[in-house]
Structure formats: structure tokens, C-alpha cells
């Protein structure tokens, strides 16, 4: 990049560096806060006294987690779900994106399919019919309910489709002249050219799968089939006090507000994403032009 060294430009550089540094701090803060709460003394954490540094020191929550087989079970389910779900959705998404990226003269019914997709993205019959449908497929309480529940992310189909459309037409034509059919054009030409955008979409989908808790709750029948976020959510979430709880229930309830333990669980749940992201990020910086951009 060209160096520009006027005074105003320098001042801007400094202001920019400071501003971005503040943003960085604000973004690290939740992580740091969670960590601080997780290692603080329980009473200080519950009183809401922990703000920027831990108060007291205790590793009890982490010791408890090591002994919590449910936590590791949920962790494993989340990993399975993320790997299977991402492969499935990515595969289907790419297969759909290719024909939809053909111009209308090549693929006559393209627009109809496109609108069906958009329609399905916006309309749904509500939670209950959806649940009943999945129940009728006998998928409830299996990992497949979670894997297939996400299915075809229409937004991502559009993203990849636009990217395909922007690939130079010569690529396609040259391959066709060589006698290649649509399948080999897709797999031999388009996909190798699109690794960065596919990596981005893979990340979108896997983040969704890793963070999603509601399907995990609705589509599972027992705690032992919960994915990690669902498992954590049921621990962290607030329970309205006063709704007919017996004393024993309330006793449990007060244990639920164990902020230190919950924070430790939340912190550990974030770790896998933090590890995976830098690897995928490599693809972004290597120079993507996402499907969003059209000449």
C-alpha cells in the first residue's frame, strides 16, 4: 500500500489505532469477565462484585466439571452434531447452488426453484407442526434430528450461488468444450475455485450448530441427548421463583444460581470455537471475494 505521511494522516492513524484497541478490549471483556467470575469466590460472584478482576480464588467449579460426566457427554454430542451437520448442509448447499447459478436460458425452471427456496426461508408452520413432523420421522432424541433440523440454509445457498455466478464464464465453457458434464464441472472446476467461500460458509454453519440450543431442547427427550449449549442453557437460565415451588425445589433453584460453576462451563464451551477459528480464518485472509460481490 502507498505510504501517505501528512500530519492529518498520522493523526488519523493514531486515533484509529486507539479506537480499534478500545473495540478489542470491549470484545475480550466478556470472555475475561466470564473467566474472572469462574475463578472467583462464590459469594463475591453472586453479589455481582466481580467486574474487572477476580475476587478471591477458587478452582472448585473446574474440579466439579471434571467429575461431571453429563458435561462431557453433551460436549461429545455437540462435536458430532457440528461435524455431521456441517458436512451435510454444506454438501446439499453446494449441490443446489450450482444449478441455480446457471442462467435461465440454460436451466429453464431456475427462477421457480429460487422462489420456492425464498418462500421456505420465510414461511413456516410454527413450532408445533414442525415438531410433530420430526416426531413422525422418528428422529426425536437422535442426533439426526439436530443434524437435519438445520438442513438447507437458504442464505448460504444464495451466497455460494452468487459466487459461482461470478466465476469467469470461460471456466465453464472451456470445460464443456472438453466434454465435461455438469458434475465434473462442479467438482473439478467450480469447487476447487471456491475453497475460501466454502470455508466461510462452513464456518457459518458450524457456528450455528455449535451455539444452537433451542432445537436441542425441543428435539431431545432426555438430558443425555442434549448438545452442550442446551445443557448449559438449562443450568444458566432463570427460573421464575414463586410459581408453586416446594421448598426442595427452591433449594435446587438456589443452587442453580451458581454463577461460578456456570461461568466455568460457559468458558469451557467457548474453547473449541476459539481453537478452530484461526485455522478457518486463514482462508478468509488469503483473499476471498465472496458471493456477495457481483461485477
Amino acid at each position: 500500500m502507498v505510504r501517505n505521511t501528512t500530519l492529518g494522516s498520522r493523526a488519523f492513524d493514531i486515533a484509529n489505532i486507539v479506537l480499534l484497541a478500545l473495540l478489542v478490549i470491549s470484545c475480550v471483556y466478556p470472555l475475561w469477565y466470564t473467566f474472572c467470575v469462574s475463578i472467583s469466590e462464590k459469594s463475591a460472584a453472586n453479589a455481582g462484585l466481580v467486574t474487572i478482576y477476580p475476587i478471591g480464588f477458587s478452582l472448585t467449579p473446574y474440579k466439579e466439571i471434571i467429575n461431571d460426566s453429563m458435561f462431557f457427554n453433551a460436549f461429545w454430542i455437540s462435536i458430532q452434531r457440528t461435524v455431521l451437520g456441517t458436512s451435510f448442509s454444506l454438501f446439499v448447499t453446494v449441490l443446489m447452488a450450482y444449478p441455480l447459478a446457471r442462467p435461465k436460458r440454460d436451466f429453464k425452471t431456475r427462477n421457480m426453484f429460487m422462489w420456492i427456496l425464498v418462500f421456505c426461508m420465510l414461511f413456516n408452520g410454527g413450532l408445533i407442526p414442525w415438531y410433530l413432523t420430526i416426531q413422525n420421522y422418528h428422529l426425536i432424541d437422535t442426533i439426526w434430528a439436530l443434524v437435519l433440523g438445520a438442513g438447507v440454509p437458504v442464505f448460504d445457498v444464495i451466497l455460494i450461488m452468487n459466487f459461482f455466478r461470478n466465476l469467469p464464464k470461460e471456466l465453464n465453457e472451456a470445460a464443456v468444450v472438453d466434454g465435461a458434464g455438469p458434475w465434473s464441472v462442479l467438482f473439478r472446476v467450480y469447487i476447487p475455485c471456491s475453497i475460501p467461500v466454502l470455508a466461510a460458509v462452513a464456518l457459518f454453519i458450524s457456528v450455528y450448530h455449535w451455539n444452537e440450543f433451542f432445537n436441542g431442547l425441543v428435539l431431545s427427550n432426555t438430558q443425555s441427548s442434549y448438545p452442550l449449549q442446551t445443557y448449559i442453557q438449562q443450568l444458566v437460565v432463570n427460573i421464575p421463583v414463586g410459581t408453586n415451588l416446594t421448598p426442595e425445589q427452591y433449594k435446587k433453584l438456589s443452587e442453580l444460581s451458581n454463577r461460578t460453576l456456570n461461568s466455568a462451563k460457559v468458558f469451557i464451551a467457548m474453547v473449541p470455537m476459539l481453537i478452530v477459528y484461526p485455522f478457518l480464518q486463514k482462508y478468509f485472509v488469503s483473499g476471498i471475494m465472496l458471493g456477495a460481490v457481483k461485477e
Partner: protein
Amino acid sequence: MKRNLALLLSAALLGVSLTACSSSNDSSNNNVKASSSPDSDSSASPALSGDDLAFSKFPKPVDVHIGMVVDPTDKTLPEGDSVSNNQYTRYLKDNYNINVIVDWTAATGNDFKQKVSLTIASGKLPDGMVVDDRSFMTKAASSGLLYDIGDLFDQYASKQVKDIMASTEGRALENASYKGKMVSLPNITVDTDGVHVMWIRKDWLDKLSLPVPKTIADLEKTAKAFMDNKLGGDKTIGIAGPSKNTFPYSTFLVSSNNMAGFDPIFGANDAYPGYWLDNGDGTVSYGTTSENTKKTLAVLADWYKKGLIDPEVGTRDNTGDPINANQTGIFFGPWWNGGYGNGDSFKNDPTANWQAYPVYSDDGKWNTHMKTTGSTYTIISKNAKPDVVKAIMIMNNALVRDEATFDLSVAVGWYPLRNVMAAANETEYEYTELTKVLKGEAEPEDYNVPNSLYKLMYADAKKVRDVVKPPYDELGVSNFSTANFGDFQRLYSLLIGDRPFATTPIDKKVYSVTYNQTPTMETKWANLKKMEDETVLKIILGQQPIDSFDKFVKDWKSQGGDEITAEVAELLKK
């Protein structure tokens, strides 16, 4: 190579989903099949009656499918046991030949509510489940999903269960019925769950040589003294208040167990917000709209302005946090809020001497609103076989009879379809009798009465001398041993928390004309309640002047309040 693998994998996935689809038709009546194993008539055994029938063992195993609430943090199940195989399910299997099959579980609170509403919406109930909201029961009943259990209840409920039901003078039965048919087993909880008292740190009072506050004016001085002397640290909170999920007072729909509300303050001003009041002349009024409620709100707003009430009232995540962190020395709640409700407070400060007292009106009266009998319901699917219904009755009988004898190192919450039934005065009875045991006027063995109405009495009597040490004249936290923390919590709540209700006569007990929704409420109440919650909190926090109360009353009446009041007045006539 990798690419082909991915392809293969996805194709395999697809295959699964397709076969899953095609096989869905032939097994769609799965539910019916599953519960049909006890189809054969098992009442072939000789004609039994009374408690023999109530505790009879099925000749052939009976499968009972249930949906169940669980506590996700519970760690008391031994290794290898599960929700459908633990000491309680084995007990039911061994003694009554009942096989409990857990169709689904969900965590206490909203998770469970969600699962129940989904189950009701899908119209496919498990044989039995315990719902914690009457509207779930009535919705299921009005949709024709529930079993009319009246006859089977008469035959199969144990004498103990019937006695407890009778102790409510028919209110429990009415509560459990829909359009005159008994469609659920109600829970019955102790009356004192609905009596809210003041919890105060006696050790703090002693430190400042202050007397126990009696009236609203005394309370204000005491709270101020606690704050001025920073007894709870720099951030001492005068009086704890409700969180974002709880309310300033209990209401006719949720009439009990309101931790850290302001119920006693309202009572001391002869105000009963949230209750339908019988005016004595054939008319009814809604307590929130009264002048006394307005007066009390003005007091609370004044306190908030002076910083005496938790500044984060109404927005806090968990109402128990400042109490457990010992930031505050005053809060209001029922008997079990001290002990069961604030265990961490004692752990964080073993000298925290929480004591319970009534708050009196200026002319020395103790007024309190009273709760309904209970509000959780065991509902049984219309499609359940009669044997399954009988099995559920027997499970309930067994729980009521044997709960005290169970090994409670495994939380009793794992008992399938546990729905508490306790005699309405159980806590007061235990308070009186346990005091006798402590003073040597009675012996634990005196309470070894099988099938007693007071099912936990004997077990508590055996423990009490180990947990509570003399002198007995003025019990405080220093009298208690916390070695077994569960026992400590129970006995602390019983002996300290229920002392006011057990020993001090109440001058005015106020019951709501109804504790259930009327037809118009089903559509209009959500809106009115929202308006009420918003106005009350805003007035307390000083975001609205106290005069806005009058406008609220007017709006409330015109937006359906009058219509509903008329409906409730009709109920009074009956």
C-alpha cells in the same frame, strides 16, 4: 479422495432421512402399542377394598409412561442409576409391579413448561405427567385429552390421601376438577407457604442494640441503621426486593412462595393487591385497585427514593443473590425462605442469625392473605388403560405413605410423578411437636404411627435432637449444627421460619374469592396483568408519580377489569 469421502458420507445421511420418512407410516400408532402391555385384565385378583386395594400389587407388570421434570444440577443419583432406573422406580417395581418408562425429561422451570405445552399441543400425552400451572390442566381438559379419574380415585386412593384431601374441605377436589369432573390429582401444600413474614438478621440488630421492628415505621429505621453502619459491607442493601422474574406481591393465580416480595408491608396497611376481595355486601373488588394499595406503593416509592430498597429491584437476575451474599439483613418471604431458601447465606457467614417475625399494622394487627390449596396437578391421558390409571393412584398413595421412610440421600425429586400432598397444617403441627421433643416432653418413638397424616413427623423427631442443641428458650443459628446441611435447612425453616405462624394468632386472614381464571381472563388477563406489573414497579422506582395510580385504575377497569369483576362476583353468589 477426501472429496469422495464427503460425498459418500452425505449420501449416507440422505439415505437415513429417506428411510426414516418411508417407515413413518407403519409405526405411527406406536404410542398406543407401547402402553398396551398391561392390556390383560389384572384385576382378576380377589376383590380387595380400602387400603388393601390402594397398595395392591399388580399380578402382571404394568407399564406407565411419564414425562418428568428433573433437576439438572442434582448429583445424588448413584453411578449407573438413571431417571428410569433408580431406588424409587425399583421400589415401585418390587412392591407394586409398576414399570415406570420415562418418555421425556426437562429441567425445572421454562424448559419443562415448554415441553408440556408442546406435548399438549401435539395431543399425544404420556400416561401421566405433573404440570405446574392450572391453565395447562384446563387446556388439556377442555381439549378432551384427560381421563376422568373420579371413580378410580374413589376406589384406589388410600385413606391417608383421602384424609389430606378432606383437610382442605373440598377445595382441593374443586381445584383438580374441570366442569365437575375430577381430571387430575392435585397437590396439597401447607397453608404457611402462603403466609409471608419478615426475615431479619437478629445478629445485626443485636450489634446495634436495636429492638425487632414491628411496624412499617420501625422497619424504615432499622433498614436505615443497617445501611448507615454498613453491616453488609460497602454495598449494603437495606431491604431486598423482587427480581426481573418475580413480583412485588403474590397474586390469586400464584398465591404462595413469593420470595423477597413486599407482601407483609401491604398486609400491614390492610392492602391485598393481586387478590379478589369479598367486600361483604355481595360485591367484589380487585385488591390492587384499592386505596390502601396506593398508600403502600407510596411508602415503597419513598423507601426506594431514600435508597432503602435494593436499587436493582425489578431488574436483578436472581432475587436470592444479595441475600445469599449477605449484603442485606431484611427480606420478606414464607417460612422456608430462611433455611431452605438462603443456604448459602449461612455457608458464607455462619453467624447469620436470620429470624422470622410478622410485620404489624400501626394499631398492632397482623393481617395476611392466604393461599389456595396447591397448584400442581398430575394429569392422566385419556388414552391410558384403566390399569395404568390405577397404577398412578398407587404410586401417589405410596409416595404419601412412604416418603418419610425413603433413603433421602437420593433426592426424592427422582420419584416418578411426585406431586406433594401434605396436610394443610403439617408445618405448625411439626413445630409444636418438635418443640416438645426438644424440651423432653415427648420422645421420637411417640410419633412412630403408621400412615400418619403427618408423614414426615417421625423422621424429623428422630433427627431434631442431633441438629438442635440447647438452650432451647430462644433458638438462633448458634443452636444448630450444620453437619448435615439438608437436615439443618429443614429444621431451621420449621423451627425458626414457621414460629410466627405456629405461635402468633393472625388477626385477619384474607382469602381470594377465586384462585382460578374466569372465562374472560383467558383472553384479557395477560394484558391487564402486564399493565399492573408495569405500573406497580414504575411507581416503586419513581419512574411514574404515585398519582398515575388513579389513571391505571381507570384503564384497568375499562380494558376488561370491570367485566372480569362482574364474573368474579357471580362466583361469589354460588
